[in-house]
C-alpha cells in the first residue's frame, strides 16, 4: 500500500463541508417546494439526512475526474461531482438548459464532462456499469477510480454479486459505497435481507469492507481516504457501508407510514449538518451567528440564482423528441471501411 494520506479533515475543510452540506440540504428542500408547486414533475427522491455520505466520500476523491455513478437519489452526488446547481435545477424543471436538456429529469441526471456517469432509475443497474467503467480505466491505465453509490436494498439484486465477483477477479479500481438507510421504499432491511450488515456480505468475494457511521462526515471522510487510497493504488475493489437515514419519504408520493415517529426522532438527533456545526461551535471555531449568515447566503443564492435560472429557462422544443435515439448522419450506416 502506498503512503497513507491524512485522514483528518482540516478546520478549513470542515467549514467548507458544512457549507456544502447545508447548500445540498437547502437545494433539496427547495426541490420539495417546487415539486409541491408542480414546477417539478415526475418522481423526486430526496437525500435529506444522508448528506455526509456523498460529501464525505467525494471530498476524499477527485470529483470531476474520478467517475461517479449512482441511483435515482442523485442530485447531491452530481453537485459534489461539479454539476452546476443551476443546470441541475433546470433539469428538474424539465428545461432545455438542464444538464440533460430537460429530457431526463431528477432520476436520470448525467454530466459527462464532470465524469458523473448517471443517476439510474433501475435499482441495481449501476453495479455492473461501474465494474465496466473501472475495467475501462484499467485498460487505459488511468489514474481515476470509479465510485458507485447505491442503497441497501439494491444489494439484493443479482447484479450486486455478479459485479463484486468480477471486480475482485480482475482487481478493478472501483469503490462500492452502500448508503444503508435501512429501507428499500417501505420495506425495512431485516424483512428483505438475510444478512443485515451489508459489509459482511462482500467477504465471500474477498473484498475488504467496513461499516461506518454515515451521519458523521469526519468518520466518512477518514474511511473514504483509506478506501480510495487502497483502490487507487491498484489493490482492487473496496466496499464501504455507511449507516444513514433519509428524512423524507422514499419519493414525494411516499408518506413514510411504515416508520415509527420515535425512530425518526432518534435519527433526527444525529443530523450530519447539525453534528458538524455544533462540534465546530463547541471547539470555539464557529458561531451560531456565522451559521445563520451562511444559511441566509445559501438561501439567497438558491433563490436569486438557481431557481431564477430554472424558472426563466425555456422548455425543450418539440423536435427534441426525435433526437438522441440513433446517430444522425452516421457515415457508417452506408457501409464501407473505417
Amino acid at each position, binding site marked *: 500500500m502506498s503512503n497513507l494520506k491524512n485522514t483528518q479533515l482540516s478546520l478549513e475543510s470542515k467549514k467548507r463541508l458544512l457549507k456544502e452540506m447545508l447548500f445540498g440540504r437547502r437545494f433539496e428542500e427547495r426541490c420539495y417546494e417546487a415539486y409541491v408547486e408542480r414546477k417539478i*414533475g*415526475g418522481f423526486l427522491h430526496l437525500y435529506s439526512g444522508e448528506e455526509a455520505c456523498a460529501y464525505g466520500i467525494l471530498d476524499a476523491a477527485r470529483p470531476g475526474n474520478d467517475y461517479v455513478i449512482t441511483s435515482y437519489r442523485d442530485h447531491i452526488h452530481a453537485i459534489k461531482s461539479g454539476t452546476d446547481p443551476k443546470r441541475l435545477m433546470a433539469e428538474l424543471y*424539465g428545461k432545455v438548459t438542464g444538464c440533460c436538456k430537460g429530457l431526463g*429529469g431528477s432520476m436520470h441526471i448525467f454530466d459527462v464532462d464532470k465524469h458523473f456517469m448517471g443517476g439510474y432509475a433501475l435499482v441495481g443497474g449501476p453495479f455492473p456499469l461501474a465494474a465496466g467503467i473501472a475495467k475501462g480505466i484499467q485498460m487505459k491505465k488511468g489514474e481515476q477510480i470509479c465510485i458507485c453509490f447505491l442503497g441497501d436494498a439494491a444489494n439484493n*439484486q443479482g447484479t450486486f454479486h455478479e459485479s463484486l465477483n468480477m471486480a475482485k477477479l480482475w482487481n478493478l479500481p472501483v469503490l462500492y459505497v452502500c448508503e444503508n438507510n435501512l429501507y428499500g*421504499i417501505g*420495506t425495512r432491511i431485516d424483512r*428483505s435481507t438475510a444478512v443485515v450488515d451489508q459489509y459482511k456480505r462482500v467477504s465471500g468475494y474477498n473484498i475488504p469492507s467496513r461499516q461506518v457511521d454515515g451521519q458523521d462526515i469526519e468518520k466518512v471522510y477518514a474511511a473514504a481516504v483509506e478506501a480510495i487510497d487502497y483502490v487507487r493504488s491498484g489493490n482492487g475493489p473496496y466496499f464501504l457501508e455507511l449507516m444513514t437515514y433519509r428524512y423524507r419519504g422514499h419519493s414525494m408520493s411516499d408518506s413514510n407510514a411504515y416508520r415509527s415517529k420515535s425512530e425518526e426522532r432518534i435519527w433526527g438527533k444525529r443530523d450530519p449538518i447539525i453534528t458538524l456545526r455544533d462540534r465546530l461551535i463547541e471547539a470555539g471555531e464557529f458561531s451560531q451567528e456565522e451559521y445563520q449568515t451562511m444559511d441566509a447566503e445559501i438561501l439567497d443564492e438558491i433563490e436569486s440564482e438557481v431557481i431564477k435560472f430554472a424558472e426563466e429557462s425555456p422548455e425543450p422544443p418539440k423536435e427534441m*423528441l426525435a433526437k438522441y*435515439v440513433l446517430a444522425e448522419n452516421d457515415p457508417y450506416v452506408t457501409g464501407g471501411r473505417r
Partner: protein
Amino acid sequence: MSETNLVEAVNKALAWELDHDKDVVLLGEDIGLNGGVFRATDGLQSKFGEQRVIDTPLAETLIVGMAVGLASQGIRAVVEIQFMGFIYSTIDNMISHATRMRNRTRGRLTCPMVLRAPYGGGIHAPEHHSESTEAIFAHMPGIRVVIPSSPLRAYGLLLASIRDPDPVVFLEPKRIYRLQKESIEEAGVALPLDVCFTLREGDDITLVSWGAMVHETLQAAEKLAEQNISAEVIDVATIKPLDMKTILASVEKTGRCVIVHEAARTCGVGSEIAAQLAEFGLTFLLAPVQRVSGYDTIMPLYRLENYYMPSVEQILSAANAALEYA
C-alpha cells in the same frame, strides 16, 4: 355492487382469487405491509397473511424465476412488478422458462402464473416509469398478454388470467387507474380471454385500441358522431393471441381502420394487426390502414410527454385520412 376504479378492481379480483383458491399467492416488492406502490394490493396481507401475500427482496429476476418454480408445483403466483420498466430483467425467465414449461414437459406441466405491472405514460415520468413495451411479450410464443381498459374489464380479465393454466402478462394502464368508476358485482365472474370487446358499434370506420388509449379513441368516436360518422370502437384487450376474427368482421363492414396505441410504432402490436388486415382483408379495405402511435424514441420527460402521447386530434385526422381516401 360497489363503485370501483381500475386499481380497486385489480385489488378485488386478487382478493377474490386468494379467497377462493388456496393455491394462489401474490409475490412482489412492497406489496404486503405497504399495499403496493399504487396500492393495488392494499389490505390483502392483513386479510390473507404473510404466506399468501409475500413481500420479496428487491430482485425481479429472482421473483419471476421463483414464480415459474412455484407454478411447476401447482402454486399460482401472481407477481407484481412495480413499473413495467422494471420488467426487463424478468424477460429472461419469462422467455427461457415460463413460456416453455408446457412445451418442454409435452403438456405434463403448465405455468399458471401472472406477471402484473402498471404500464404506459401520462404520469410525467420518463423512460422506465412510462413506457409501453407490450409488443416484446406479444412476440413470445407460449404466453398471453392481457390489457384491461376499464374497471369492469380489469376485474373480469384478471380473474380469467389467474385461472388460466398458461403464463399471462397482465398490463395495467396506470394513467387510468383512478380515472373512472364502474359498479362491480363481486361475484368472481371472469370475462373471456382471447376476445376483443366491441365498445361501440358503427358502420363507417373501425377504431382499434387497447389500454388507456381506448379512452381517447372513444372520445374520437364521439367527435366523429357529431359529424354523422359512425365509428366502431374495438378494445383488443387480449393482444396475444389476437382475436382477428372480430377485427376482420368489423373492417369487412366498415372498410376502413385506424389502429391506436401508445407504444412506439415500429413492430408495435399495430403492425401485426395491419399485417393481418392486409393478408385477410385486402378485398374489403377501402383505404390504407392508419396507425396512430407513440414515436420510435425514448419516452421523454413531462414537458414533451404531451407530444409523445397520441391525442384525440391525431386519431381524428387519421380517421379523416381513411374516410377521405378515394
